[in-house]
């Protein structure tokens, strides 16, 4: 009897419910993904699925695996920033689908300042942050004063910023390819220092202080949301705009401020990726960066909690990187995009899962 009561309470704790609901989403996503793999080619499906889930563990030698673990972490840092950007805005009742555009602008400014003016990394980072913030602010102003749906405005801004950044970065691209020049050879000052962190990951030079910085920012966002007056006001605005106004809060400037902060976060994320030198921007890019959209998956999978999103961002990046290890003769790498899209879709059912758990717990 006693244990039964404890079990009931255990299922009713909000955090436990969130974790269970997220795990259900992941499981459903993986099952549907596996079925798709089976439909394409039954023979290699299991191998493909395991290589997606193993990612860096794909390499048998521990040193190599550790090095690729470092690369996955280096890409998790920017994803975590986009995730924080989306969940922060969502808490205030705004869907920041423009994270991709803010991310693109951040990448553009960071790389341009680094490559054209050889600025040190921290200046580039701040510029990326401001750039993303301004773009977020535009969407916020449009929403607060002109009642423009932030999702549609965000998508339009995504495309506008993608084309603008392509135009800007064409000035600093390699002459023979469409990619921007490598930071390491052209302006080493622009690289984020690693302060010895690379030694931990078999000398993987992409492992920089960006990774611990991203985790610290996640904790700061959590403190801001749940421990400060500003966070309280922002959440109140998200719950009921009119009630917040009636209680004397400046609901319009709260909305704009939210979008500016969200934009800063995604802009900074881009700096974390491109200033580590792990990737170069392709000026012929015709698709909006996927990072912002994967951030949506991670934000909802993490139960819209900054601390939870540290883990969910890692998971999403883990399977995205793992997608590149599937057998290219049988499947394509986009299979992991498909799985994360399915996971986002099932995240829509989280409320329903929680409802079921509550009903079960009451019985």
């Amino acid at each position: 009897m006693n244990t039964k009561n404890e079990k009931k309470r255990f299922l009713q704790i909000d955090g436990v419910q969130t974790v269970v609901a997220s795990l259900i989403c992941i499981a459903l996503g993986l099952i549907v993904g596996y079925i798709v793999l089976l439909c394409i080619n039954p023979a290699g499906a299991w191998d493909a699925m395991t290589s997606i889930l193993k990612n860096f563990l794909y390499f048998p030698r521990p040193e190599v695996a550790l090095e690729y673990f470092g690369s996955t972490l280096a890409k998790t840092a920017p994803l975590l920033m986009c995730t924080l950007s989306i969940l922060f805005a969502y808490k205030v009742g705004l869907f920041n689908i423009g994270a991709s555009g803010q991310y693109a602008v951040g990448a553009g400014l960071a790389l341009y300042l680094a490559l054209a003016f050889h600025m040190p990394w921290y200046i580039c980072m701040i510029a990326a942050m401001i750039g993303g913030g301004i773009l977020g602010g535009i969407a916020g102003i449009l929403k607060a004063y002109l009642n423009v749906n932030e999702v549609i405005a965000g998508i339009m801004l995504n495309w506008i910023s993608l084309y603008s950044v392509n135009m800007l970065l064409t000035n600093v691209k390699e002459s023979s390819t469409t990619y921007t020049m490598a930071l390491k050879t052209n302006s080493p000052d622009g690289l984020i220092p690693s302060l010895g962190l690379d030694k931990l990951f078999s000398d993987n030079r992409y492992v920089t202080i960006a990774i611990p910085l991203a985790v610290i920012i996640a904790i700061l966002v959590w403190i801001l949301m749940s421990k400060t007056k500003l966070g309280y006001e922002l959440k109140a605005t998200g719950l009921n705009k009119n009630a917040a106004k009636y209680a004397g809060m400046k609901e319009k400037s709260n909305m704009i401020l939210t979008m500016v902060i969200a934009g800063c976060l995604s802009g900074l994320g881009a700096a974390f990726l491109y200033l580590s030198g792990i990737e170069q921007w392709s000026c012929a890019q015709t698709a909006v960066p996927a990072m912002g959209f994967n951030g949506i998956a991670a934000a909802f999978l993490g139960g819209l909690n900054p601390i939870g999103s540290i883990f969910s961002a890692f998971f999403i990046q883990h399977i995205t990187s793992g997608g590149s290890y599937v057998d290219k003769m049988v499947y394509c790498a986009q299979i992991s995009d498909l799985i994360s899209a399915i996971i986002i879709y099932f995240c829509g059912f989280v409320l329903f899962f929680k409802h079921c758990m509550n009903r079960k717990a009451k019985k």
Partner: protein
Amino acid sequence: MALLLQYTLIYASVLMLVALGGCFSERSGVINLGLEGTMVIGALGGALVMKYMGNLPAALMILAVIIGSVIFGVLYSLLLAVSAINFKADQTLVGTAMNLLGTAAATVFVKAINMGENVNNVSSSIQYIEQRKAFSAFKIGNFEVSWFMILAVVLLIAAHIVLYKTRFGLRLRACGEHPQAADSVGINVYKMRYAGVMISGLFGGIGGIVYITAGVSEWKFENGVAGFGFLALAVMIFGQWEPKLIGLAALLFGLFRALSNVYSGFDILEMLNIPSAVYNMLPYIISLVVLALFSRNSKAPKAEGIPYDKGQR
């Protein structure tokens, strides 16, 4: 000039069809942000028909292509209908998931087909050079009228009649304005919303196939439809959720989209020496400006985006 007019009309047809889809869904009370993904899946359906049934006589093939797109589009829109109507899911989130899912699923699927035919073919394109020729109805000089333009006009008129002249349309609109009131007089809100979302899948699917056959004879599904579904939503808002106005709004947006395809044909524009990226951005900039000007007094259906709960007062 004829080319500009032709592209304007074909892009306007796409935007109008998809915007009408959005209009039906929102009028019933469900925000359909997944139109972009619906377009991709609809386009995939049509492209597969063209690939495997390309030998049919022209008229039959056009019909088959449209049916293929409609079936794919409607089935795909059920993803939104089930989650938003039965499970009360967040419509923005589900719409976004559908957009990502549409492109990813189409890419995986087309790549699997291509690799099945030839192991070294890892592209995500489907070609339809010969099949596409069947779509042109007749030519006036250089100006080519496509069957799809005619279809778009017919569907526009049909949409107007259905929304404003039939009992079904009145009921659909009631569910978007005040579902509780509609329920109290015996209208099944869930059924009406299902109908609205499925009609939007129908329009989105047709819009998708018209878009990919507009200017090119092969489509790379990795690229999706480049934000066209969202441009269509801007057209819908600009058109104040009314078919007639949506038709006019689509023409304006179609013109700007067409400019980015054909600007090099005009000496004046060529002389200005504006980079092509600016023309690519133009439709998006215009829609932002238009949204900023016209969203303030929007006549959006009052109950859109709110899941219907029978117990709520």
